[in-house]
């Protein structure tokens, strides 16, 4: 028991938690934009996977993780554009399209990894390593948790705050939300619903792609098949748990990062818990927390409904 407490008390746990929370946070922020505009984007998982893959490709060929990140985001945006085109303009079923895209991305990334590298053995690349902020990282307790991280965590926090501000404090955000609540009324007021939904989906793709980039370039420094491992779906749950708020998503994503970190850290102690069962923990927690909060969250009114002007 005391060993469990040791794990819970270690700063390394929380530092790891933040690192593991980042991909989910980025994806969840993207999904908040999409869902606030009325689009359920089940293709989140595929967008993350594409981001993770293209990020590694980019970092490998340019030698620069930041350029890799841009390339990863761009590739995920392409997937987002397909999702947007079929679900917004063609009124295809949003969920069906998302499911199809997830499968397609899984196939395409696995194939390309093998096409480029023998046996799909993707080499290590330069990624976003942790660096110590001068002075701040010396703060006892908090320092190693918050200020010995890769630069992307500051981008993530900034993105959460910025998303909150854009969605709730600007007229652009107000109109975007109108498209998710009542697109017909929004349309009658002259708001271009399709354009707003497109923009929301593109933002979603870029953020989900960045989340995927962090999975590959911020954690493993390489790519492996299906490395997103359901995190896109965890992010979907995080959005509901966070009640479609970017700031609450920050907290919810950290919670999941913490459980994943806990599962990992327990394995390096003497505590005798099967590794496989610990790896199931984040998914169990997702179910439990989701079950605990769902009654209290209200989705955008027209979420998941296609809109046509006719």
């Amino acid at each position: 028991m005391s060993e469990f407490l040791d794990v819970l008390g270690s700063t390394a746990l929380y530092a790891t938690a933040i690192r593991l929370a980042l991909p989910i946070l980025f994806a969840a922020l993207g999904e908040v934009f999409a869902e606030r505009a009325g689009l359920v984007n089940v293709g989140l998982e595929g967008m993350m996977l594409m981001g993770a893959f293209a990020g590694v490709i980019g970092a490998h060929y340019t030698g620069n993780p930041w350029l890799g990140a841009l390339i990863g985001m761009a590739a995920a945006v392409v997937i987002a554009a397909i999702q947007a085109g079929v679900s917004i303009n063609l009124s295809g079923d949003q969920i069906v399209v998302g499911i199809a895209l997830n499968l397609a991305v899984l196939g395409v990334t696995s194939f390309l990894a093998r096409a480029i590298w023998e046996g799909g053995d993707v080499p290590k690349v330069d990624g976003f390593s942790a660096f110590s902020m001068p002075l701040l990282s010396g703060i006892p307790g908090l320092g190693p948790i918050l200020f010995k991280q890769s630069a992307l965590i500051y981008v993530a926090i900034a993105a959460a705050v910025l998303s909150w501000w854009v969605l709730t404090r600007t007229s652009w955000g107000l109109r975007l939300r109108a498209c998710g609540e009542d697109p017909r009324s929004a349309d009658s007021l002259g708001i271009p619903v399709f354009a707003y939904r497109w923009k929301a989906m593109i933002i979603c793709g870029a953020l989900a792609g960045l989340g995927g980039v962090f999975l590959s370039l911020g954690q493993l420094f390489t790519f492996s098949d299906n490395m997103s491992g359901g995190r896109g779906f965890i992010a979907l749950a995080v959005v509901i748990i966070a009640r479609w708020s970017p700031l609450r998503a920050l907290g919810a994503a950290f919670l999941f990062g913490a459980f994943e970190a806990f599962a990992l850290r327990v394995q390096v102690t003497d505590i005798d818990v099967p590794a496989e069962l610990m790896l199931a923990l984040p998914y169990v927690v997702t179910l439990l927390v989701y079950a605990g909060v769902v009654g209290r969250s209200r989705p955008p009114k027209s979420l998941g409904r296609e809109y046509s002007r006719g």
Partner: protein
Amino acid sequence: MRRALTGRGDTVMLIVRTAAALVGAALVGAIFLLSDGVDLIFAFEEILNQSVGSSFAIKNSLIDAVPITLVGLGVAVAFRAGIFNLGGEGQIYMGALAAVLVVLNLSGLPGPLLILLGLAAGMVGGGLWGGIAGGLRSRLGLSEIITTIMLNFIAFWIVSYLVRGPIQDPGGAGYPYTEEIPAKAELPVIGGMIPFGAILLIVAAAVVWVLLERTRMGISIKSLGAGEAAGRFAGLKVERTGFNVLLIAGLLGGLAGAASLLGNEGRLSDFFSPGWGFIGVMTALIGRGTAVGTLVAGLMIGFLTSGISGAQSAAGIPTATAQILLGVFVLFLIIVNTDIVVRHLRRAAFSLRRAER
């Protein structure tokens, strides 16, 4: 009203569309094959040969069709109610787990009884997993899209833990799998060509058809699919129906796991399913959520998968390219069916909106 998923498509158009998808996939596939330096004509010939060229090839194709079609039928039932069962993968693993436990522990029983119990156990295991998602949906209102995916991972890690620990084959040199099932528990192959699983498939499709088209529950399922508000107004027990379809999907997913275990795999491992749960989703989509459509789509994909994987070594097709070929085909099938999805959903959206006013 998800007419797109319920429509009785014109048979001629179904064939035309499928042919178009095949041609499209062959063209795109050709690019991948050429980039691998594969002899195209030989590769396509070999794929055809390995899919229907001999009774051995037909047997293998049918074996490939079994799990995806069974899962697909479960997905189809849920589709008709407007519910997405993405949990096929977890249901397969839980079904196979239950089946392997029963078969290994009761190996003293006579073969036919053992098979029957194994298949039944599979349905219980899968049904439990589908039922959990159903319960979470109907009691608490959790989206099955998220819960079924989470349950997939949980089932996978449970199986992974068990096959590396408590039920690992002691003589398996540390590989993550169970002992092999006794020979008498293996599903028979009739006439060297028709695996027992294929008969199971026809029966399951028939049962699903009767359920959807000839029973009261079928009416409830389809009314729920036509719109929750309308269903509630008509006195439909929406929650109950939502639970039922996920339970039924779980039963079929579990059966898929058990049938593959007893019919082909012989033992449970944590690489048991190569994504059958998700291919099943595609199968149901292509089959438009009907029993017959799903059966036809499942057989089609089964024959194609088997043909491609059989041709791999002879024609020198890399595994990843083989995966891509199938993926491209499914993608094309979806593309050629998009217009129907679009047209029907538009009309559906209107009738719904009017109904709500």
